[in-house]
């Protein structure tokens, strides 16, 4: 068989995909694209950093600033500072727990 004969024969060897090939492929690609969508949610690291910063600032504010003027205005008059701090800290920890729960719940839902 010479070169020209081979060319004539090989020109008849092209194959065609099935009619639903592209549709079925695009369905798979769309499914993969959905799985790759990231939730519009800040990363845990960033959330924790912000919360830590807020706690430090709140503590500094609570323990370092003189609140006598507030007592005069009767805003925090009867509340003990340490108790107030404990309540704020507990609320913040509860918030962190909620944020983490939400984050992992979203991650799990999107990856399945």
């Amino acid at each position: 068989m010479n070169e020209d004969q081979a060319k004539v024969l090989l020109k008849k060897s092209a194959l065609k995909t099935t009619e639903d090939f592209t549709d079925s492929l695009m369905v798979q690609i769309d499914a993969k694209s959905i799985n790759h969508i990231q939730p519009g949610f800040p990363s845990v690291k960033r959330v924790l950093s912000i919360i830590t910063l807020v706690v430090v600032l709140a503590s500094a504010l609570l323990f370092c600033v003189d609140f006598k003027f507030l007592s005069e205005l009767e805003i925090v008059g009867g509340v003990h500072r340490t108790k107030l701090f404990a309540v704020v800290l507990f609320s913040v920890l509860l918030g962190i727990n909620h944020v983490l729960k939400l984050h992992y719940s979203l991650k799990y839902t999107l990856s399945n």
Partner: protein
Amino acid sequence: MSQNSAFDIELVNRSKAGDTLAFRDLVNAYKDVSLTLACSVLKDTDLAQDAVQTAFIKVYEKLNTFRQDSKFSTWLYRIVINTAYNLLKQQKNHHQMDVLSNLAVETDGKSEAKALTEQEQRKYINLALNRIRPDEALILRLFYLYEHTIIEIKEITGFSKSKIKVDLHRGRENMELQLQKMLGNEITQLL
């Protein structure tokens, strides 16, 4: 270095931007060539179709890494061929042996046909290509069917120039041998 067509560049850029319709057009443009190349390696249309689907998914996922310093088709065919060879390794020849035995049954008793129709000619040519080594069938199709140069084939397959030349020569001989086995003297109708 070969240049990308404006059509390819536009579709690739739109696909990179997340336009799935553009990617669909790329698939439609290259799916048949990709199937033919994958089938050269795998010798089975269904398996080859699976390989091509997997390859296109890889292409979609890695499209952002395509830098356009080579032709899109070359990049795509390289992924298709690698995927096909990986699948072939997984199959460990068992499936191939089944396919070859099925082909033998299919061709029995048909060598007496006097006038081969166009469809029959295509069938026998593809059967002959399925009976020769994957590398030979792949190189024959890339060179004669899709008219790639030896340099382009080297870029697509990663084979050396000397291997490509040897496989082209052996591939032609082996294909003729297989056609003779199936058709006997009727081979003259094909040539």
